């Protein structure tokens, strides 16, 4: 299918670019220094631009989606996370989405049986797959701080030790490498195997998955197969952190593949659906407290609208109202 193959080919082609560039054209400086700087700049600037672009647009109405009992009479129990009465609770609700993927945990699957008969089963695979995927990537990113800082600090050391707890390979196997690959595979397969997912997926859904898979595979290849020497890598990265423009040392080409794909992801990020990372903090249905009857929400552009007043109404119906013995303002 075209919409799966195209993004796959794109990622493959993108992976070849730095390989050819470094191996055959000697463009290590471009791929090791210039492009990473540009990509980092675009990621930060783009992300901020998108966030500001959202934030400057008003939220005219309080449209919280309520998934639990509201604040009501004193003796009726409230569900404060599902139906936050205050901004603090709304913030907790958003955090529970960010950290635990709370809404996805609710997921179920509808099945149509003979009868016809609709049945609903628990369906937590997407929740689990998504959670493993995101958390693994986070740990992997944090783990990389050992390349960016001379001494990364005890928290990062702990993360590193915990992640390599299963010391089964040389160098020690990171659990998150395996988990991230497994989760990516699951997330791709469900888009291909489930009929609904096949219909609704676009090329832009496969591309970032393949891109991330490419990054992880290149990283794994460097560590366990090609065994790329990490010292020059660390020197390069520490240099970048110091805004130095020193040329990179002798590093295997696979590293440049890894780094370049990361740069592509960084540039792609702010201009794509990956911005859900920022959007989740702003979604009005989740981030607003359900207190609109208790506290007036102000619409900054509250448009004036002319309505039909009682006086106009009475003018039209006065005689009929009098006959029906309804009180009127004017006789």
């Amino acid at each position, binding site marked *: 299918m075209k*919409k799966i193959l*195209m993004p796959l080919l794109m990622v493959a082609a993108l992976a070849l670019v730095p390989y050819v560039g470094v191996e055959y054209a000697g463009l290590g400086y471009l791929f090791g220094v210039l492009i990473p700087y540009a990509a980092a700049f675009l990621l930060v600037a783009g992300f901020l631009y998108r966030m500001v672009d*959202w934030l400057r*647009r*008003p939220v005219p*109405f309080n*449209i*919280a*989606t*309520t*998934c639990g*009992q509201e604040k*009501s*009479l004193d003796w*009726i129990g409230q569900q404060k996370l599902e139906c936050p009465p205050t901004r603090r609770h709304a913030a907790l609700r958003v955090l529970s*989405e960010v950290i635990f993927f709370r*809404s*996805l945990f*609710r*997921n179920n*699957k509808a099945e*149509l049986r003979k009868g*016809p008969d*609709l049945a*609903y089963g628990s369906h937590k695979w*997407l929740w689990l797959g*998504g959670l493993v995927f995101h958390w693994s990537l986070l740990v992997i990113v944090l783990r990389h701080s050992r390349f960016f800082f001379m001494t990364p600090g005890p928290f990062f050391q702990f993360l590193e030790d915990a992640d390599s707890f299963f010391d089964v390979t040389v160098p020690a196997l990171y659990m998150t490498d395996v988990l991230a690959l497994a989760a990516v595979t699951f997330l791709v397969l469900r888009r291909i195997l489930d009929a*609904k*997912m096949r*219909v*609704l997926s*676009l*090329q*832009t*859904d496969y591309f970032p998955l393949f891109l991330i898979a490419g990054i992880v595979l290149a990283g794994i290849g460097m560590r366990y197969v090609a065994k790329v020497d990490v010292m020059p890598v660390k020197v390069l990265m520490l240099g970048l952190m110091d805004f130095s423009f020193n040329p990179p040392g002798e590093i295997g080409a696979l590293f440049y593949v890894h780094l370049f794909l990361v740069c592509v992801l960084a540039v792609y990020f702010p*201009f*794509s*659906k990956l911005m*859900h990372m920022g*959007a989740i903090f702003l*979604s*009005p*249905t989740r981030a607003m407290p*359900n207190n*609109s*009857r*208790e*506290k*007036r929400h*102000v619409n900054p*552009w*509250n448009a004036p*609208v002319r*309505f039909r007043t*009682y006086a106009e109404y009475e003018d039209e*119906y006065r005689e009929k*109202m009098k*006959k*029906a013995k309804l*009180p009127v303002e004017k006789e």
Partner: protein
Amino acid sequence: MSKYLPKQSELVKEFEEKPGVLKGDYAKSEWWETPLEFREGNFCFPAKPEVLEELGFPNPRKWAPTDDDWKLPDGWQKTVMDGMKERLKKYRSLKLYLDSCMRCGACADKCHYFLGTGDPKNMPVLRAELVRSVYRNDFPLVEKILKGFSGSRKLTPEVLKEWHMYFYQCTECRRCSVFCPLGIDTAEITIMVREILQLVGLNNNWTLAPVANCNRTGNHLGIEPHTFVQNIESLVDDIEDLTGVTVNPTFNRKGAEILFITPSGDVFGDPGVYTMMGYLLLFHHIGLDYTISTYASEGGNFGLFTSNDMMKKLNAKMYHEARRLGVKWILGGECGHMWRVVHQYMNTMNGPADFLEEPVSPVTGTKFTNAKATKMVHIAEFTADLIHNQKLRLDPRRNDHLRTTFHDSCNVARGMGMFEEPRYVLNKVCNSFHEMAENTIREQTFCCGSGSGINAEEYMEMRMKGGFPRADAVRRVKEKHKVDSLVTICAIDRATLPPLMRYWTPGVSVYGLHELVGNALVMEGEKKRTEDLREEPMAGFEDGDDDEE
């Protein structure tokens, strides 16, 4: 049975031929390549030209969705794109929800219209993609360069027709937004797209005729003041015949403590009128100082299904009338979308209501602090408080002829968070109550299939499909617990669920919560009760039986 409705066996066959919830084979085609077919039964009649003229809406004309030429105004593409740009500026929600969807598919099988039709474009994610594909084509810079990659397309007449079809197969029920990890709310997108469609004259008479009526006469049904009063007075007579008690509602009375507003369906429609009788009995029972307005005689607000400006215009009457009459606060009847408007929009649009007082129950002294800014209390909260403080004399055995279940209405469930109050009241006024399956109630409740202004006769086929998940859940609880009564707190439900039940689950009747309250209330000076408010015999109270009293 409606000529717009296929036999039940035909729809069953359609379900059974499907390979799964998704209908059709998409191995070789993309969703945007699937053709669109308007035919009798799958569209609501467009608004009549005179209705549009009365409202001052654009492009009044005679047309039908089955026509090839929809007589769109000159420059309609620009009107639509400008309309979209304007709304993207005014609503963070729209921008955010068009930008950030991951197409994870969690929402796909949560939509009752998707479950009922199997049409992929009814998956909430694709419903929004109908718009996103056009939005991506014109707006964000990078994806514009890579069109095939981002799945974008031009705004053509076919795309517009697709919007018209599918944004009227969304009932703004917000079930998808419960499951979405980002909380993307398709209702929000539907509201915006319907506003945009109005700009080029694409609309639906079943929504706009009530809007015009409500503006002119004060209520959706277009009832003039004298008729409105007459109708309630005939209910007063019915109450007297049944109970021997004379209730005395007042109209447009200045100086009353409370203004009571309920959907006009409760005044005119069957079975809504029985709920109205319940309110009247309750208010009499507690000696409430209240009045009903003929000017603000509509709780519902079809403006919500038209445009936000129209919603504001119709809603403005509530506060306007409360101020004129000098009441202390407003009490609202049972209604779904009315309460979405009252709870989430009213005070922002037409407040602050500083001329009213913070609501306090005159009977129990309870302060409704949760409504202290809007100053409008839901009747289920009000009644639950009365019962909790033992201010009502109730005999739940008077509902022993009913075996009930409760249908959470989308808007009070997901746009307000009201779950326990109606259940508390229901359990106090009847002895037999069974919940439907857990994935079909509370925040996961299924829409009646006809909400958001598509309750038209000519739309019956789609309504029966969209309502199927709700009906199916009722069927299960009926088989398991012999339930025969579906209780709701929504006037649209009371209008739309009876045909749905007749079609899929015969033998289940639809009730308003306060109809059951009315049945159970032991009124002072009442005669011996043998029949409920529908004049159906109550079990254990037959004539001749010796009651203990």
